[in-house]
């Protein structure tokens, strides 16, 4: 086997995987804490990219610098969506009805994006991208490397928050057992809203990073929702580490299968891995139990 | 002839031995009670008999046939029904429908679901509530629904898991009456119960389990006079 090609593929997979991880972590949180599959996740990702674009065009803010602003805006949007629509639907009918609500929300938001930005392909650029560099014969794409670094930083931040902040601990407790968490004085409703907010915020941040790497259009949302699905199932639910593992695995499966089997087959491999994982280890690599599975 | 034979049954959970080499037999048309402190392994034992858990080692023979590791519905079709400690009704179905399900499935053989249902509801004193959704019943009624459903499955052997837990004196008495009636209907009962009074009242035979092992087996009066049982069982519940 050609060593350089192997390492090149490995590095490409890692980089791609890091970005997948960030884009999926929010999905994973909602899935873990609320037991809801958020079909509006992909559009949150895109909203991040489009907000970054708007901030750059109107105020000249560098997209990487705009991440905090975008996160804040999406936090509000995500929390509002949960408080106004999702909570009511789950209370009035079932957990499953949240699927329709989030699907409906994604249709509305996507049309809103088209109204404001048009259906055209857009892209982001930043002055702060790392230059492409070499490790031996392996070429590392600067933009993607920057994306990976930013992703890892953000995931680390989230991890710290989840394990050290009070609200983070409350989220984890709610994910384990919301009834018991309620007995401990945790206001589950507030935690749900916060979780949705954080999820949207991280989706938005990943949107900016994705925008720096790839062009985007308003119709990519299904793609990112699906990717998040796969990542979460591969890695396990509700934790940044699970999302990271799942993302990296997804990235490697994708690059290795396309390099050594044929670039056309990567999707077949990805979804087969997903199916296999569901059957063999339905709780993901990390095996976090998950209440929605009962 | 014995109805149920448990032969050196063992269940291991990741390092923990929940049940260790337990053997006993159940005679037809008797009420046999299994008692023991919390965590002694009674539920694990029930779960293995009813097919929810596969034993690590050992055998379960029912009516002469090996049912070790059979799927729950197969066990039920052979004629073993189970009433849970925590009632699990189908909340959106009525009491009658709940029982009807058991009557139309349950043990294999000739069925008359409607008659069985009416009879089971009657035995368990549930007739006034027959058309109410099961989700709206009181705890005592739920317990009896659980029993009604189990007997509507026309079992040869009924596994009853702490049917008296959490009931008041009057409700407990009603329930033990039901159990006696069930035996009169030629159903063998294997009971897990905490309420010693109730156990004494109904049991033909008592088996005591502690920390996964059988420590006593015999007639109720003899077993409760046994010093090891008093130490192990009554001792722990007191502390």
């Amino acid at each position: 086997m050609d060593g350089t090609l192997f390492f090149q593929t490995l590095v490409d997979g890692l980089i791609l995987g890091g970005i997948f991880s960030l884009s999926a972590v929010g999905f994973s949180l909602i899935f873990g804490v609320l037991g809801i599959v958020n079909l509006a996740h992909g559009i949150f990702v895109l909203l991040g990219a489009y907000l970054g674009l708007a901030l750059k065009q109107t105020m000249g803010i560098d997209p990487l610098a705009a991440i905090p602003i975008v996160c804040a805006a999406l936090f509000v949007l995500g929390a509002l969506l949960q408080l106004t629509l999702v909570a009511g639907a789950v209370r009035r009918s079932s957990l499953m009805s949240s699927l329709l609500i989030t699907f409906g929300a994604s249709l509305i938001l996507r049309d809103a994006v088209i109204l404001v930005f048009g259906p055209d392909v857009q892209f982001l650029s930043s002055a702060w991208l790392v230059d492409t560099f070499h490790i031996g014969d392996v070429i590392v794409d600067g933009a993607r490397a920057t994306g990976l670094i930013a992703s890892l930083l953000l995931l680390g931040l989230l991890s710290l928050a989840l394990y050290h902040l009070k609200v983070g601990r409350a989220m984890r407790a709610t994910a384990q057992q919301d009834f018991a968490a309620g007995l401990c004085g945790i206001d589950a409703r507030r935690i749900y809203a916060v979780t949705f907010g954080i999820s949207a915020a991280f989706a938005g941040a990943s949107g900016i990073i994705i925008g720096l790497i790839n062009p985007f259009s308003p119709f990519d949302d299904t793609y990112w929702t699906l990717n998040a699905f796969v990542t979460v199932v591969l890695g396990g639910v509700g934790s940044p580490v699970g999302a990271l593992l799942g993302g990296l695995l997804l990235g490697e499966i994708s690059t290795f299968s396309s390099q050594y089997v044929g670039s056309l087959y990567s999707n077949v491999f990805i979804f087969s891995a997903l199916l296999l994982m569901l059957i063999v280890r339905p709780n993901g690599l990390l095996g976090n139990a998950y209440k929605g599975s009962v | 002839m014995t109805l149920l034979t448990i032969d050196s049954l063992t269940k291991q959970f990741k390092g923990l031995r929940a049940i260790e080499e337990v053997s006993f037999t159940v005679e037809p048309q008797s009420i046999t009670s299994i008692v023991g402190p919390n965590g002694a392994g009674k539920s694990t034992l029930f779960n293995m008999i009813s097919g929810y858990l596969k034993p690590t080692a050992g055998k379960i023979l029912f009516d002469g046939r090996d049912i070790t590791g059979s799927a729950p519905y197969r066990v039920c079709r052979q004629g073993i029904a189970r009433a849970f400690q925590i009632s699990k009704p189908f909340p959106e179905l009525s009491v009658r429908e709940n029982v009807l399900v058991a009557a139309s499935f349950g043990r294999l053989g000739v069925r008359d679901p409607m008659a069985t249902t009416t009879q089971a509801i009657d035995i368990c004193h549930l007739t006034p509530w027959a058309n109410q959704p099961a989700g709206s019943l009181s705890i005592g009624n739920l317990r009896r629904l659980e029993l009604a459903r189990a007997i509507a499955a026309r079992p040869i052997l009924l596994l009853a898991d702490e049917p008296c837990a959490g009931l008041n004196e009057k409700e407990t008495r009603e329930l033990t009456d039901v159990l006696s009636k069930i035996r009169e209907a030629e159903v063998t009962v294997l009971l897990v119960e905490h309420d010693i009074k109730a156990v004494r009242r109904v049991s033909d035979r008592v088996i005591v389990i502690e920390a996964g092992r059988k420590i006593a087996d015999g007639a109720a009066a003899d077993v409760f006079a046994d010093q090891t049982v008093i130490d192990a069982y009554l001792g722990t519940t007191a502390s």
Partner: protein
Amino acid sequence: MRGFHKPVPATVWALAALLLAGAVVLPFVASPFHLRLAQQILLFGGLAVAWNLLGGFTTYWSFGHAAFFGLGAFAAGLLGQQLGAEFSVAARLIIGLAFAVAISLVAAVAVALPVLRLRGIYFAIAMLAFAQILGEVSKTFDLFQGAMGFPLPLLKFPGLEKVQLFYFLFLLFCLVSVAVFVLVKRSRLGVGLTCIGQDEDTAAMLGVPTERYKLVAFVLSAMLTAAGGVLYVYGLGFMTSETVFRIDISLNLILFSMVGGIGTVAGPLIGATIMILLTQVVLGDLLDLHMMLTGAVLIAMVILAPKGLLGLFRRAWSRRRLAETVEATP
């Protein structure tokens, strides 16, 4: 046993007969456009009813029924191509239907054995993945011609326009779906499935053969869906992977069921009627905003009618009856 359902009241029989009579007369009075709408309502309504065979009774919600829809379409289409012009179009369609149903039976059993062990959302995701895999495979291997697509022969029947002919085929399909669903619902299978939906473990404890019942419902649902896929592509006359392996087909079946009322026979049909009329007639002319409005209607539906429209009607009806009894008793 006949399930715990009361006998069907005469009014329902009368209503069904009336609807059926109307449905048979319709193609001779309605315009081709209205017939096309009706075709879609019958097809997707019928598919939604088929989806309800498993998803309506239990919480096993397949997010990937497009898998069987597409599998059927490809099986019949490719077989028809192999048979060639020596066989009449009708023969190719019928052989194709049989083949599609057989293949989907095999596929459904094969996929059900591992996937039906999964519960809740994991089952939903696994089905979604299954549909994605089939879609990708059909596009990836040239053998299946999914990327480029291929034409299907034009079915003709003396005395009927194409749009009328396919209307009747879709009507037949819908009737078969409804019949299967009603039979299942009123049988032991239906009782068992209802119990599985309420509490699977307890159902097993009471002697319901849960694994087998789920499998039977799933396979029946898959076979009907495959048959629907065959008719659909024959109606279009040309197919690619994009024609059949569409996530929105899978989602629509759930959506129609939820809008009308899940687990009922009329619910999915009502849901399909409303959503298709809404998206293709009422909002059909809007170029820019129709998706947004569809989304808003969906959300409104879930908030205002959480048990579907049927649930809403039932509640309103029982409320009125309650009011009448209160008035009647002084």
